[in-house]
């Protein structure tokens, strides 16, 4: 584990992004005249399209076009959306912020709830609390997001009327409009985190060093806080990091259901309208997010788990 590890990771990351960019570009821009129809609209005549293709360099060989597009993408020229008629970059930025806000709010609830349930269940394995948490985890992860959205809306909007049924933020930001989307996200992923934390905690509680800690005279609370938790949280934390990509592009169902103008809906609309440049940009953004969170979760794992830490002060001369 050393700088070499980091370089290899970075190279892998770069290669993944390149591969995805090539995949997206091929799917969307291989067929040239489709692009022209999309941009100029269905009433454009054949020669108008041909002129446009000529002018925008679409007659060049495919690979050259790909490289030119990649260059433009890296330098921030993401093109204008064929549907919204606006620069893609200015379209994505506010939507990304909105989804980031939703993701942040969701994580603020999911992480403490999930970890707390997992730890309590893990410590008292086999107890009633443990069984309750397991049942909660299984039930909530089995209900699809749109189903829990329906149930929560039926309860809080139609029946109790406490919450607005829609999170359009039509006139400015209202916290009340975030409650239901965050509720659905929490329901779906807190159970998952709890389950992972529970099994990790249960496993750690059985390990020899916990018995050592007890036999040294540590009270149970201290055994858990000083010895069990630092070991048990390593896996859940990395899993939580991997929830971020899902929270950004995966929650399309929740965003569409509540009409929340986030990155997910933009991606969904772009795909429906086959808005070429917008899809390319959105896909690349979500790939970058995925890859960055993967690296971040590896770094977090190495930081939390000294066994994996790189640049540690060399190994003592132990027997092979």
């Amino acid at each position: 584990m050393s700088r070499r590890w980091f370089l290899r990771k970075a190279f892998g990351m770069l290669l993944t992004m390149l591969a995805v960019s090539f995949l997206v570009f091929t799917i969307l821009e291989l067929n040239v005249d489709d692009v022209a129809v999309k941009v100029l609209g269905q009433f454009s005549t054949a020669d108008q399209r041909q002129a446009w293709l000529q002018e925008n360099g679409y007659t060049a060989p495919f690979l050259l076009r790909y490289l030119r597009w990649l260059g433009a993408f890296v330098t921030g020229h993401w093109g204008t959306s064929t549907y919204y008629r606006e620069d893609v970059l200015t379209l994505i930025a506010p939507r990304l912020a909105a989804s980031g806000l939703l993701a942040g709010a969701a994580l603020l609830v999911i992480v403490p709830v999930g970890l707390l349930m997992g730890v309590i269940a893990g410590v008292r394995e086999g107890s009633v609390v443990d069984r309750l948490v397991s049942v909660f985890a299984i039930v909530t992860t089995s209900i699809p997001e749109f189903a829990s959205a329906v149930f929560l809306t039926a309860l809080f909007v139609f029946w109790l009327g406490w919450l607005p049924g829609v999170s359009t933020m039509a006139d400015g930001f209202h916290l009340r409009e975030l409650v239901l989307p965050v509720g659905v996200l929490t329901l779906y992923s807190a159970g998952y985190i709890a389950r992972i934390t529970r099994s990790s905690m249960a496993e750690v509680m059985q390990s020899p060093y916990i018995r050592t800690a007890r036999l040294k005279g540590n009270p149970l609370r201290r055994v858990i806080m000083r010895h069990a938790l630092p070991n048990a949280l390593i896996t859940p934390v990395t899993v939580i990091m991997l929830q971020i990509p899902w929270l950004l592009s995966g929650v399309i169902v929740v965003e569409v259901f509540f009409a929340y103008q986030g990155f997910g809906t933009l991606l969904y609309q772009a795909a429906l309208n086959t808005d070429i440049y917008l899809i390319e940009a959105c896909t690349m953004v979500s790939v970058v997010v995925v890859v960055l969170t993967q690296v971040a979760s590896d770094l977090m794992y190495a930081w939390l788990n000294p066994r994996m830490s790189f640049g540690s002060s060399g190994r003592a001369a132990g027997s092979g």
Partner: protein
Amino acid sequence: MSEPPARAAQWLRTNDGSRLHPAVEPLARDALQHRTDRRSVLRVLSWLGVSIASARGVLGMPAAGAAAGPAPRRGGTLRFVCSVQQMTDPAATTWIEASNLFRNSVEFLTYVDSDNVTHPYLAESWHPSEDLETWDFKLRAGVRWSNGDPFTVEDVVFNIRRWIAPGSKSPNRTTFAAITAIEPLDELRFRLHLARPVCSLPEHLYAATCPILHRKFEEQGANWPRNPVGTGPFQLTDYHVGRLAVFKRRPGYWGQPAYLDEIRYLDLGTEIATHVAALAAGQVDLLYRLTISELDLVERFPEMQLLTEPSAQTLVMRMQQDKKPFDDIRVRKAVVLSADREQMLRFAYRNYGVLGEHHHVAPFHPDYFRLPPVKRDVESARRLLAQAGYPDGIDLTLALGNTQGRYEQDTGQILQQNCAEAGIRLSLQVVPAAQYWTIWDKVPFGMTYWGHRPLGVMVLELAYRSGSVWNESHFSNAKFDAALDHALGILDPHERSAAMGDAERILQEEAVMVQAYFPKKFTVAGAHVRDFRADPQDYYRMDKVWLA
């Protein structure tokens, strides 16, 4: 009104003081002797430049719209839920929603109210020649563009020439195909020369795609949102497709200033239930569209004003005659005969609407001609299919995009069940709405939504005349075109509907389309929105609207 008909005519005046058109006097007499209904006569008189006030006096009809209610309050921001669509040139914009946006800022030569009466607007007055082939217009004086330029005949000439230019992408090219030349007479007057008589020309000038743009519109990039010059009461301040459009009241408007300070058009996506929820939560004031499935939702909120309006909007399931297997009329006939219109109206739109007769002209259209009733006949449909060479049934695909709402897909599924009885295995190809507009005129069998038009003839002109820009069914029939021209030339509504009958019959006999019903139009406003009137054509003038 006991006034003897002969003398009554003398009270009629024209807006520009010119001589009355010879047809005016006989029409007024017929109306007074109750031989034709007075509303359609008033409509024709308005075409001929007769002043509405004098016409109403003579025909004994109350002054329109004398709203007695409380005095309107000035100011406030209205939040209007309406999709903010991609638009560059108002003359070529296919969507009504987009026209409603720029309607606040650019104006028309004439204005047609919800009773289909044509009023002066930017054109102060006009009068046609006897043979209805030369029309003289006089523009309103003292009107200024938002960029300060004066509004002159030059602007009008630029626009009309642009509409009828050979390369024009605008549907106006078909609507005003009759115009051969426009002759500016002086600063504020111009004359239109027509190839053939078109009586309803003033009413056509209020079509969604006929706003008068600034003369330098094309020089400055032909992109209205980016360079929103207009003569209207509001000024566009920002425009983001798919998100938001904002209009603020414009100082220096020639007419009576609008009541509202600002109108914010919010695009909340295609989920109309979301719009209703936002209205219920007080986040918005007015919805552009409501479909049948949200009706029950709205009824749960008594304080909401549910506005309903019979409308000639409809779903046209047309078959392209130049594509297999629809080139065989027996196949088309079989599809039309197996369609159960009552069932479609009942299930897809819960009977809120009027049955259609497969020829796209609504019973309440002034120029509608009643044909023998259409009967469903599955047996003969099956027999026709066998004759056409499909004894054990045929596989067809209907493409649709739910552009206006889920009731499109529901209508399709009822047709599916109907066709099954006649041995037609119909499968539905549902594509996303935006996607449908790229294939709507290319698919052999597609369901397309057509907005309301005040006149039946206007619709047939646009959709079924050979070579028309929007002729999605590729229908081309000389006899039909002739019948259409004949109807367009007739002034008397009674006589014109007879001529329309021929056109309708041809469409039915050629089995061009399955057109089952004319769904009613719904929209809903918050309690505090006042004087917002639902318009059959969805042409909403916002300057009269105010917030209590």
